[in-house]
């Protein structure tokens, strides 16, 4: 199985210089020439036995400052394609090397529609041109931005960029760039004598749950087309990953999916620990699982209440936020913070569980199921709620995979795929739980899946409580950070080691790894490249919301404005998770 993807490619393209690269995460990785990447990817998607159906992620690396690339083909910029095969239950990583004098590669947006935004993002942040792309515009940065921020020679801080000035002519240029022209968005203003209305939804709109802008092309109230615009919430999290040490980047991850709390730490640290080769002790694993599942409930509660509110139901949001507050009380007791606990550490967690945590958790497990039943009656069984959601915004499993949809939104189409079961991490294979699915793929199906997931999360938490192992809460590996205090005060050697690993942070061996987990909203993956330093060389954050929002036009075409709100609510996205 291991080499078979690379082997098949070599067999199919005998003339191609395909170079296999060993990686820390054991994902089959191959280098192919950029000009042939499209053919190789098409082969992997359609022709190979047990094909790689999903374009999981697509990103780039600026390799010009790399020191330790032993054995890899020469490259200034590398495009990295991550594909996922459900039949094989395996990823494959395809890399295409580019030289600085010719930064272009063929677009694969006609193979995977989901590649559209990913390629725009790469053009925006790295300046790599994709030939044949239908609409290669900036996606994340403003249209008037100069430069490509994820290049190594681009400043990371505003203070490195000189003072900000806004003279009259620049102001006018900026204003002009904001002018709305339907043609720029790929829309026509009239058709067959009908003039369309263009309705600007957001970036400030109560229904978009954050700074998301959607331009609607309307015929009456019917949606002809919708074009989402993102980037308003962009904070350069990936760029910051290249500046912060491995350890001090953890709090930044908290703020990616800001409703997911430790779930973000979890994905990031899975990747870091793969790179460092750290084995997390059993107690820390179970603690991680327990808190992650509690955060899954917390995140789903926000979704539940706000979804009902999007449909005009006023009260549920107060009830669910109330319950969320009770869950936060536990999080606060254990971690000391609520939404952004920053509590997982490289090799374990920050501290052992607080005394009395089990009593609090037990109270919550007893309290919550009756509330869920009440919400079922109030929301899911409500006939108006059903009328608004059943059959609205549906998609098939094939479409979902095509667009890179993961998590509850994928399971709502009837496809039982949960990374906790299929690719167990942190000991998820020791737990008993079901994977809820729905068959319809519509807004109602997504709601059913999430509600049932909360029950399953409770089951997992219960098992964590019943079987909490004893032992250390952090690995004794020398790269685990910060090192345990009680082990440092013995002699000068231990003190110096501690001093260095707190001051500089751990030095992670060179290599690359993808750490992907089943986060609250879908698959959240951190693709980290280490050059053997105290910071990551490249931090790529693959978020579920990005893929989900890209699919929005497909879901809402032909619907009405209220349907758009129902679809947005049912997708459960977070803007920071889209823009990073």
């Amino acid at each position, binding site marked *: 199985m291991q080499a078979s993807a690379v082997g098949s490619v070599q067999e199919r393209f005998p003339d191609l210089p395909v170079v296999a690269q060993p990686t820390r995460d054991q994902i089959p990785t191959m280098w192919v020439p950029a000009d042939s990447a499209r053919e190789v990817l098409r082969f992997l998607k359609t022709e190979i036995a047990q094909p790689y159906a999903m374009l999981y992620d697509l990103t780039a690396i600026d390799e010009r400052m790399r020191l330790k690339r032993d054995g890899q083909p020469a490259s200034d910029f590398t495009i990295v394609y991550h594909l996922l095969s459900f039949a094989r239950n395996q990823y494959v990583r395809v890399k295409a090397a580019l030289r600085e004098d010719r930064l272009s590669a063929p677009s694969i947006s006609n193979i995977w529609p989901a590649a559209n935004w990913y390629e725009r993002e790469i053009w925006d942040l790295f300046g790599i041109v994709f030939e044949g792309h239908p609409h290669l515009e900036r996606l994340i940065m403003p249209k008037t931005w100069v430069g490509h921020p994820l290049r190594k020679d681009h400043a990371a801080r505003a203070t490195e960029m000189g003072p900000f000035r806004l003279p009259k002519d620049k102001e006018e240029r900026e204003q002009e760039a904001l002018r709305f022209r339907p043609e720029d968005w790929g829309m026509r203003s009239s058709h067959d004598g009908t003039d369309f209305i263009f309705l600007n939804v957001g970036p400030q709109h*109560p*229904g978009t749950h954050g700074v998301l802008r959607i331009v609607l092309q309307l015929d009456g109230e019917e949606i002809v087309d919708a074009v989402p615009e993102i980037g308003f919430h962009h904070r350069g999290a990936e760029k910051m990953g290249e500046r912060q040490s491995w350890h001090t980047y953890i709090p930044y991850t908290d703020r990616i999916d800001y409703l997911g709390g430790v779930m973000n730490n979890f994905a990031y640290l899975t990747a870091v620990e793969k790179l460092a080769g750290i084995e997390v002790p059993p107690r820390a694993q179970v603690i991680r699982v327990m808190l992650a599942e509690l955060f899954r409930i917390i995140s789903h509660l926000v979704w539940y209440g706000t979804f009902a509110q999007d*449909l*005009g139901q006023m*009260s549920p949001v*107060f009830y669910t936020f109330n319950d969320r507050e009770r869950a936060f009380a536990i999080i606060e007791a254990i971690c000391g913070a609520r939404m952004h606990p920053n509590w997982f550490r490289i090799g374990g967690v920050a501290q052992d569980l607080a005394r009395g945590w089990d009593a609090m958790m037990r109270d919550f497990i007893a309290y919550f199921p009756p509330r869920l039943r009440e919400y079922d009656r109030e929301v899911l069984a*409500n006939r108006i709620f059903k*009328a608004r959601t059943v059959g609205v915004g549906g998609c098939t499993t094939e479409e979902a995979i095509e667009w890179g949809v993961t998590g509850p939104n994928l399971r709502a189409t009837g496809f039982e795929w949960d990374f906790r079961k299929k690719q167990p991490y942190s000991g998820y294979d020791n737990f008993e739980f079901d994977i809820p699915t729905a068959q319809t793929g519509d807004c109602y199906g997504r709601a059913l899946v999430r509600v049932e997931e909360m029950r399953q999360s409770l089951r997992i938490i219960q098992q964590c409580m019943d079987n909490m192992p004893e032992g250390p809460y952090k690995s004794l590996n020398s790269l685990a950070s910060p090192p345990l205090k009680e082990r440092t005060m013995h002699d000068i050697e231990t003190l110096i080691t501690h001093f260095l690993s707190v001051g500089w942070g751990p030095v992670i061996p060179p290599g690359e790894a993808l750490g992907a987990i089943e986060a609250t909203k879908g698959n959240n993956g951190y693709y980290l490249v280490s050059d053997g330093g105290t910071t990551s060389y490249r931090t790529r954050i693959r978020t579920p919301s990005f893929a989900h929002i890209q699919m929005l036009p497909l879901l809402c075409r032909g619907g009405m404005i209220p349907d758009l*709100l129902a679809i947005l609510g049912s997708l459960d996205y977070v803007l920071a998770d889209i823009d990073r």
Partner: protein
Amino acid sequence: MISPHPIAALIGILIVVLSIASGLIWIERRLLALWQDRYGPNRVGPFGLFQVLADTIKLLAKEDWIPPFADKPVFIIAPAIIMVTVLMSFAVLPVAPGIIISDLSVALLFFLAMSSLGVYSIVLAGWASDNKYSLLGGLRAAAQMLSYEVFMGLSLMGIVLLAGSFSLTDIVHAQQRIWFIVPQFLGFLLFLVAGLAETRRLPFDLPEAESELVAGFHSEYSGMKFGMFFVGEYLGITLISAMITILFFGGWMGPVLPPIVWFLIKTFFFLGLFILIRASLPRPRFDQLMAWAWKLMLPLALANLLVTGAVLLAFYR
């Protein structure tokens, strides 16, 4: 029974109605808070009673801004229309024996006419704002009102048949033996739904639909012009509750307590019901709302009228 002078009744009813409407804002916020596990306004005055007063002062002190792109005269007149039409309807309501401003013989028709005129306020506001969200809100309002007016009138015709009069006083008197809720239960349900739609309250708040259209027809309104829409909505709820009391629940009639107290008790009961409905239901989609009006409500109203007429013909001729 001594009737007060019509002018005295006018002033009295105006004051009472306006204070009920504004008091209702406080009641609604407190009740919603109670049902939603939170506090609601409880800082200004005892139990937060003066919150409305504080809000009114705030609204009055705010800049009364008219967007430069708006159709100015229409923009100004729109919020006045809703206040006027709703207040006019109160003129024909018999609150208690003799306490009525104008005992019209066609009071019911007058009420229906005024409520139909009220929609102009919403439509004109949506139009004059020259904002796409407002326009969509106005369009929704026009379509919604049109569909719901139709069976609103029809749902009341059964009562007219039973009472043999359009006069609200006569209708109350006709309920001496039995409240019309019993023979006209279907009519009551239809009127309740139509009344909800008429006041544009959840689940019929499509014209403003906060989560979709951001406030719909009154997105552009600020200061006291917004305040008029706001109070107009609460006046509307009070009006519909009072009408339900008069038409189906024997108006002021009841044992022991004075008539006006009975009238208030019944009216407040329905006010509470309206608030409870708002707290519990989601909002249907526009086309579903229309489909229900034309495909379900209208035939039911017609059937109700037909059956009532047939029964009357058969037994009471």
